[in-house]
């Protein structure tokens, strides 16, 4: 699983790195020369990083265009063109996994950003105890996902789980609820575990963004007669946009690589309702030894993530690195 999650998250995270470097055109030749020297210094490190990031991606693309057979001493490949992608196109499991991953990402990121914003605003307003509150909030984020997923699977258990116990004792339900056994409830259960874990992360990024907004802007807004509501929408929100973008991007990229939560909580069930793209790729590759179609799933995931990232950056119309530097 470890390798699997690394695979999923790793493939998904990469485009973030690609999206960040923004360079401004240097007007002076001296600046240009300095930049060149800087790049030269960067080159060895960049080469090493590329060999462990770009290399595997390109290899995955190559495998996805091949018919792959395991020989016990590596892969035997023959050129297959788009045959693996044709398999995906015809496989209902693929479309289901894509729909689940996209829908899940949309829903959880929306909730996490909304909740995270509220938490960040509250924390920003705190005069004392901010450090302690943040430490407590960050606990879920710092727990390893597999560990927290195991805890959630115990809480969610439909026979002896704590959540059902509380619901029955409080007479909310008469019968235990089979949280992980009903398609809709299983989606909610997995989503809930995600929101619990990553809302603090979003809050942290947004809090950093809030603290970079200059106090005097609010004073000016108050002098101009703006109430709290108006000053939020006119001052806070526009200036927070770069941080929001960073938070949303990070979450979308991570969420598209979703693997460990459903792997532990539902193993993709009931049926295949909570099977994410990463889980599908993992199963194709390591259960069925279908490395061609499996890598095709990974490549499609990366392509989808890159597309979403580009759309977001364009749509929100912010350039990363303007005010979001501190948060990133």
């Amino acid at each position: 699983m470890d390798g699997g999650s690394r695979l999923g998250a790793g493939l998904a995270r990469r485009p973030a790195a690609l999206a960040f470097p923004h360079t401004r055109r240097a007007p002076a030749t001296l600046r240009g020369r300095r930049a060149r020297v800087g790049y030269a210094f960067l080159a060895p490190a960049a080469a090493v990083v590329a060999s462990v990031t770009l290399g595997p991606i390109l290899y995955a693309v190559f495998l996805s265009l091949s018919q792959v057979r395991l020989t016990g001493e590596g892969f035997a490949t023959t050129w297959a063109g788009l045959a693996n992608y044709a398999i995906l196109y015809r496989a209902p499991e693929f479309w289901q996994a894509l729909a689940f991953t996209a829908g899940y990402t949309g829903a959880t990121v929306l909730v996490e950003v909304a909740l995270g914003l509220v938490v960040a605003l509250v924390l920003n307003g705190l005069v004392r105890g901010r450090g302690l509150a943040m430490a407590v909030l960050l606990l879920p984020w710092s727990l390893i996902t597999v560990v927290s997923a195991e805890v959630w699977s115990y809480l969610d258990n439909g026979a002896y789980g704590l959540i059902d116990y509380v619901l029955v004792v409080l007479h909310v339900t008469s019968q235990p609820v089979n949280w992980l056994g009903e398609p809709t409830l299983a989606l909610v259960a997995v989503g809930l575990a995600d929101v619990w874990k990553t809302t603090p992360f979003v809050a942290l990024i947004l809090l950093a963004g809030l603290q970079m907004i200059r106090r005097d802007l609010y004073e000016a807004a108050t002098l101009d007669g703006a109430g709290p509501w108006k000053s939020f929408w006119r001052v806070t929100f526009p200036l927070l946009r770069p941080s929001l973008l960073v938070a949303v991007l990070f979450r979308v990229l991570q969420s598209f690589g979703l693997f460990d939560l459903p792997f532990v909580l539902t193993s993709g069930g009931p049926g295949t309702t909570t099977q994410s793209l990463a889980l599908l790729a993992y199963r194709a590759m390591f259960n069925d030894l279908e490395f061609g179609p499996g890598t095709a799933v990974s490549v499609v995931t990366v392509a989808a993530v890159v597309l979403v990232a580009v759309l977001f950056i364009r749509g929100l119309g912010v350039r990363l690195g303007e005010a979001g530097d501190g948060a990133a």
Partner: protein
Amino acid sequence: MQTTVRGTILGLAAATMVAIWSIGAAAGPAQHRAASVTIVWAASPISNNGLRQHLITAFERAHPGIRVRLQSQPTNTDTNRQELITEINSGSATPDVYMGDVIWPAQFAQAGLAMDLSKVFPSTFWRRFAPGLVAGATYQGQVYGAPFFMDAGFLYYRKDLLARYHLPVPRTWTQLAVDAKTLLAHHAVRYGFVWEGAAYEGLTCNLMEYLTDAGGKVLSGTKSLFDSPASVRAVSFMRSLIVSGVSPAAVTTFQEPQAMNAFAQGQAAFLRNWDYAWSNSQSSPAVKGKVGVAPLPAFSASGYPGYSNIGGWNLYINPHTEHLAAVRTFIEWMTGVAGQTQLATYASEIPTNAQVQRLPEVRKLNPVLGVVSRVRLVARPAYTPAYAKVSSALYTNVNLALTGQLSPRAAVAKAAQAIAQAISGQGL
């Protein structure tokens, strides 16, 4: 200035390249001592009392020239398999020998991940094993795994509760349902019968037991036989256990630990589980001394005992091993009388060695062993390299039928279609 900078950069780059190269060189094969051979054995944890190390110590005492290093693998069987595939397919010479699931031979043989043991051992070697086990490790006429310990599905029951309400140990599924409903009506337990119904390999094992008893089959050769009235009967019955309240709805999310947990906490009257559930229930205060074990029931009284799905683990050899002779000695010992007796007495695993299975001192320790000679065994159709896909076609669709998302008939039809696709090498 310019040249100095360039020189520095070139120097740095060169230094980096040298550093990378030397790291790569240092990671090459380790040196072996001339006096003794060290082999690496990859195995996931077997019991919770250190059986693997115990076996290694006993083996090293018997064969002082061979040292064994344990490479502990993940408990999760999928993760375990993934690591072995990655390691061996990359050409690594270690692990020299590894413990792998009984459903792996065809897949691993086809992918070149396991050595053909027919060429390593003489044909007389295979006579030591209990009947049926070697056939299960055979792919296209060659044996790829040496049976190490076996497992099967058993019915565990609360003998104290059955005695108190004068109920018989069930021999039919109908009787089990009656027993469970009586105990539930008296509030003697919260749940009647718990088993493994989550969408994973364990559900395929459970299904095989009902299916075979109902007269059904998944495959014959490369032909899917799953779309049959017997399959519908098996799946309908499993679903009816939930609908009638005999089993909690949560069994559709249960793997072995959850089912074991519910039973060990004293919440369930009946449990379908593997051999380990015996020793596990002996260490649970809530049910210690109150548990009995029997073969699984059948649909009709004349069909008793019902079918038990074969589980368990084989020893496989890495095709790239550089210590074949030592590995051969290791497997000889592990599957021989000495190793198998340790296995059965130290951790009460079910030995694969027929002679050890019959030893009175072994039988006395583990009542499951007395039962195993009475059950009828059925193997999953793992003789096809596409078995992993076949199984996931079964468990994903049957799981949906158990939760009521699909009718048993529709689930069987969908599974059969996916199986046919998997066998013909199409689909994802």
